[in-house]
Every structure is written in structure tokens, then in C-alpha cells.
């Protein structure tokens, strides 16, 4: 019992921040993200025995979190929001050029289609390899790599077109 508790606490401390970030980009809402993370860790506690390989802990938790997120949509069919209409929360004032870009990038990430955004989140936040992402998402590796390519491509294009627009304005 004691050993289980220690193992669990170690998991919570190691992964709660990454899981929260991941959840936030799935649902675009801080409080829903926290609920998702809470629920994920509760389920993890109840089935901690099934986690045999400590190295797989992170992808195991992500899989639980994704399932919880899907459940949320099953429960709340009518609360579905079209992602294009949804502004991603951002805080703080926009100052320097870099902050401006950061702000734009956040919006663009929020507006990426989910099928492109999720592999990108797994790669950047989760640090997972192409093979790991394909097993988490249940897709073949080529599909995953194509989606990652498109995700970055879209972000880069969106950013460059805004910069061009800005340049034209300044010129």
C-alpha cells in the first residue's frame, strides 16, 4: 500500500504539468483541463497495478487522458464548440516582437485541426518519437509523419503570411 502510494506520488509530481498542458491544448479551457488531469490521475490510481513498465508511464497517462477527453464529448454532445470559432485563452500584454510571434503562434496552434495538433503536442510537449505517437494515436507511422509535416507547414505559412502582411503595412 505504502509502495503504491509512493509510486503514485512520483507519477503525479513528474507528469502533472505536461498532462495539464496537453489537456489544455485539447480543450482550450484551464478549468476543464484541470478536471481532466484530476480524473486521469484518479483512474491511474485505480489501475496502477496494470502499469508494469515505469518507462511507459507517460504514454500510459496520456492514453488515459485522451480517453477521458473523449468521454467528455460523449457526455456533453451539445456543448461541442467549433474549433474555428473558438479563441484560445491568452494572458498578458503583447509587447516585444518575440512576444507578438508567440501570441500569433498560440492562436495558430489553437486553430490547427485536431488531427494535426495532437501529434504535434505529443511530439513537442510529450517528447514522443514517431513510433510512440503512432501507437498512442493508433495510426500508422507514415500517417503520423505526414500530419506532423502538415502541422508545422501550416503554422509556418500562417506566421510568414502575417509577417508579410505586417511588412507591407510598414512599407
Amino acid at each position: 500500500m505504502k509502495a503504491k502510494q509512493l509510486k503514485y506520488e512520483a507519477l503525479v509530481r513528474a507528469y502533472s504539468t505536461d498532462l495539464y498542458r496537453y489537456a489544455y491544448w485539447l480543450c482550450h479551457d484551464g478549468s476543464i483541463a484541470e478536471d481532466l488531469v484530476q480524473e486521469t490521475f484518479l483512474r491511474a490510481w485505480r489501475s496502477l497495478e496494470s502499469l508494469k513498465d515505469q518507462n511507459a508511464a507517460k504514454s500510459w497517462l496520456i492514453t488515459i487522458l485522451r480517453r477521458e477527453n473523449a468521454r467528455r464529448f460523449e457526455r456533453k454532445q451539445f456543448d461541442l464548440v467549433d474549433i474555428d470559432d473558438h479563441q484560445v485563452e491568452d494572458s498578458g500584454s503583447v509587447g516585444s516582437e518575440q512576444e507578438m510571434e508567440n501570441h500569433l503562434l498560440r492562436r495558430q496552434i489553437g486553430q490547427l485541426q485536431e488531427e494535426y495538433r495532437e501529434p504535434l503536442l505529443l511530439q513537442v510537449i510529450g517528447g514522443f518519437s514517431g513510433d510512440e505517437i503512432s501507437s498512442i494515436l493508433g495510426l500508422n507511422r507514415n500517417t503520423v509523419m505526414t500530419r506532423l509535416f502538415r502541422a508545422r507547414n501550416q503554422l509556418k505559412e500562417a506566421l510568414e503570411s502575417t509577417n508579410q502582411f505586417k511588412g507591407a503595412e510598414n512599407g
Partner: protein
Amino acid sequence: MDELNFRRRIYADPNDSASDINKACQEDKQLAKFRADMQDFDKQIAAAMEVTPPENLSERILLGQTIDFQRKQKQKHRVHLAIAASVAFIVGIVFQMNGVSPRYDNLSDHALAHMISEVDHIPGTATYTREQLNSKLVHFGGEMANDVAPIKFANFCDFNGTTSLHLVFQGENGDVTVFVVPSDSGLKASDRFSDMQYHGQTVETQKASMVIITDKKQSVNNWTEKLNKAIKWQKA
């Protein structure tokens, strides 16, 4: 590796360091720069994805787990208790059906059993007054006109499902127990009865049976006479 393929792979994973990618970078400065730029862009993406989690997120998760765990334990206890109660209930029914638990259809046997089971609960000192006794005796159509002995106990009790009066007097040679049981109790009374230690008598009145029990060292006859003289029973 052609350039298009190289770019696609770097877009998909800027940190791809497979040997063919590294080789292409060494051979072509442009490709190396492209990779470096994409790696910078990825750092930008990572910075943009950074979201500050709520304060004490880990602690809150751990607290949530503790509360959930305690609730589960409580539910488990409740289930165990419910199972135990069900088992006890079934056992009770089975015993009742098989007649294992003692049953008395005889007033005197019941009176003896009741007295013996209650003997430990009778106070050592006699603190009840005759008024207290009469306030209860009146429900059975009786009134004690004069004191016969100090009263140690005078209370209603359940007598095989019938509300009855349980009295204990402090006699000179030991306690005397008297039950006043309504006539409609369905229990048959016998005039005289006894076991190894006690003996008793039953007196029928208009509304009730009065069962008097003493131990065998005392004369139950004397007590019956005393009580008959002291208690006035309503006539029909």
C-alpha cells in the same frame, strides 16, 4: 536524398538525426541551415505551447486521490456491514422457523425467563415511590393503597410482545418480582409454578394477570396475600 524528401522529414521532425539526414547536412550547407532554422522554429512552438498549470496542481491531485480512496473504503465498509446484517437477519429467520430460540406460550415460564434475564438491570437501592408505581399500575386497572415494601423497580416492559408492568420489591429476605400482564396477552397462566431456585403464583384480576415470583427461601404465599390486600383492582 532529394531536397523535397529532406524538407518533408525535417518538417515532420526537426530533431531527426538519422544518419542519412546528418550526411545530407554535411554535404549541403543550405540543408544544414534549413534544419537549424526549423529547430529554432520548434523551440518557438514549444514556448507557445507552454501553459502555466494552476498552483499546487500536484497537491490537489493527491488530495483528490486521498478523498476518493477514503470514500471507497467507506463504501466497502458499508457493503460489509450490509452483508453482515443480511446474514444475521437470515440466521434469525431460520432459527425462528426451526424453533431454536426459546418460545414460551406459558405465562409463568415467560415470567421466570424474563425475571432472570433482567436480574442484572435491577438497581441495588429502592428509590421508586408508591406514586410512581401507581401512575403505571393504573393502566392495568390497579392501585396500591398502602406500602408493602421498598420499591426497587417499577417500569413497563415488553412481555412477549405485550406491554406489561415489571415491579421489584425489596423483601426482608430478598427481592420479590411482580409482573402485571394484560389478560389479552394470549399467555396461559398457571396458579403455581417453580424452577430450581424460584417459585411463584399467578393471581387473575379483572384486566390483568399478576405474577408473583420469589426465591424459594421466601414464602410466595405471604407475598401474594400482602399484595392482594394492598392493591385495589377495578371492578368490571
